[in-house]
């Protein structure tokens, strides 16, 4: 089991960030299937950033840093976004936005499909008092859209989901189901008992 590399870099120049720093990707051990690519580094967004929206002097003086830690990145085999809304065209536009954002960030889109809509109907009395034969009917339509992404790292998932959730339009709800992959932990690899066929003391 190769130990994760200890990397620590501080980037103080924001223009370099905007220039596209591609070497932040993981230093993965080669494509050997026997090894587990474990030295995946996570970059965390800086907590102390003093960039303020309302000031006119925006970029030049405030440094922004991307910290790289040696904590292993979570791996998501599948991330499924289910978006619900009352208006189908709004969901169409949102799907366009989400798929384009995924393409730009090099996230593999597994499938985009639409669940059949749900109609919630109920019948009420039209009048406040009596007149039982005169009713009024209402219905609520819920449209769905499911976007499935596969093979995403924890950092990328965090960035993408936050971007996509902040731009969620009004009146649209979202449910994100993430399937994380984990290795078998060390304490489950081998049984802890000695070779006793019958263990009376521990059966209490």
């Amino acid at each position, binding site marked *: 089991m190769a130990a994760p590399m200890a990397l620590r870099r501080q980037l103080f120049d924001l223009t370099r960030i905007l220039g596209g720093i591609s070497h932040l990707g993981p230093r993965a051990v080669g494509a050997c299937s026997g090894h587990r690519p474990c030295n995946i580094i996570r970059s965390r*967004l800086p907590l102390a950033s003093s960039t303020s929206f309302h000031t006119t002097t925006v970029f030049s003086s405030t440094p*922004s840093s*991307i910290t790289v830690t040696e904590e292993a990145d979570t791996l998501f085999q599948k991330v499924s976004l289910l978006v619900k809304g009352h208006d189908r065209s709004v969901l169409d*536009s949102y799907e366009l936005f989400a798929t*384009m954002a995924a393409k730009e960030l090099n996230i593999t889109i597994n499938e985009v499909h639409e669940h059949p809509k749900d109609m919630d109907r109920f019948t009420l009395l039209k009048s406040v008092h009596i007149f039982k034969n005169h009713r009024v009917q209402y219905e609520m339509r819920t449209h769905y859209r499911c976007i499935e992404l596969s093979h995403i790292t924890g*950092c990328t998932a965090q960035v993408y989901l936050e971007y996509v959730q902040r731009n969620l*339009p009004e009146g649209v709800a979202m*449910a994100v*189901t993430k*399937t994380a992959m984990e290795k078998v932990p060390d304490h489950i690899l081998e049984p802890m008992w000695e070779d006793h066929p019958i263990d009376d003391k521990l059966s209490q």
Partner: protein
Amino acid sequence: MASHTRKAFLCLGRINASGLGLQRPASRVSYATDKPINSSAGNKGFPDRGGRGFVRRPRRPVGEPRTEKMPVDQDWTAVYPAATPFRPNSVPLPLRMGYPVKGGVPPEKKGNLELMKIPNFLHLTPAAIKKHCEALKPFCTEWPSALDTDATCDEHFPIKVDGTDYVSAGPSVRNPSARVVHLKVKLSSLNLDDHASKKMLKLVGNRYCKDTDIITIKADSCPLRQQNHDYAMYLLTVLYHESWKTEAWEAEKAVADMEEYSWEDSPSQRNILDALVRMKAAGEGEGEEVREQLLGRREVQEYKDSVTRLKNEGESESSMLQYKEAVKKVLNL
């Protein structure tokens, strides 16, 4: 942490605006921190002390809409940097929306409530998305290239943990269903021997799916997702170690507890051997050697296979046919 990215691309919009040289006056776009342009505090519509009637503040003449002054190759991300309601004077498109008048067309965009009500995506044009993603790319990491197929993922990372997040508008951002955790693991990927895997299946009960060989543990008793995740891992650990143990009372396992049907010492074996012995009749005497010799015969073995298959897999066309053939061979029909 989240605000940083938001400010990053909002600042991006403003930087590009300043880069173009600002052909339109910046004071048109007003923010809360700006000083109020109109300093006439006294003339706000209240009449003077001495004057009669209502002295209205003289209204500024309405200028031409901004759309007239927009160049064709402008930077749209500066016009709509964030999600804002629809402004007809800022969108240079001939939009019409609404139910048309009889014999007419849908109403125009000026003063159109329908266009204002619907959420617009004017701030998320492809150019804007590209800009945002360029700013976000440094924070992303790549998927390791060695794990390209599902099979390799299952081999190295057999435990799958499912968690769900919910985003919706309401009085509270919390959703109690977000604490539920499903832990899925394939039985074949755990280090279990024969007895241990059978015991594990008995312990796990209906959480095991035979078709996919996956054990699913659902944990929702704790209030936080992290706690539920830890509890599910703890349950898996306990199940694993308990299934390796062999208790004293496991020796009392009866035929009814067996998971699979085994032909040895079963009524079926006794019956067929009795029948064959009686068929042999005269010459050879009763004894264990006769039975063992009969057991070794090929037809008896075939009969054993067909009966085992019938009992374990259930009845089907092929299994019944196999049984029929085996019986015919054994009884020399």
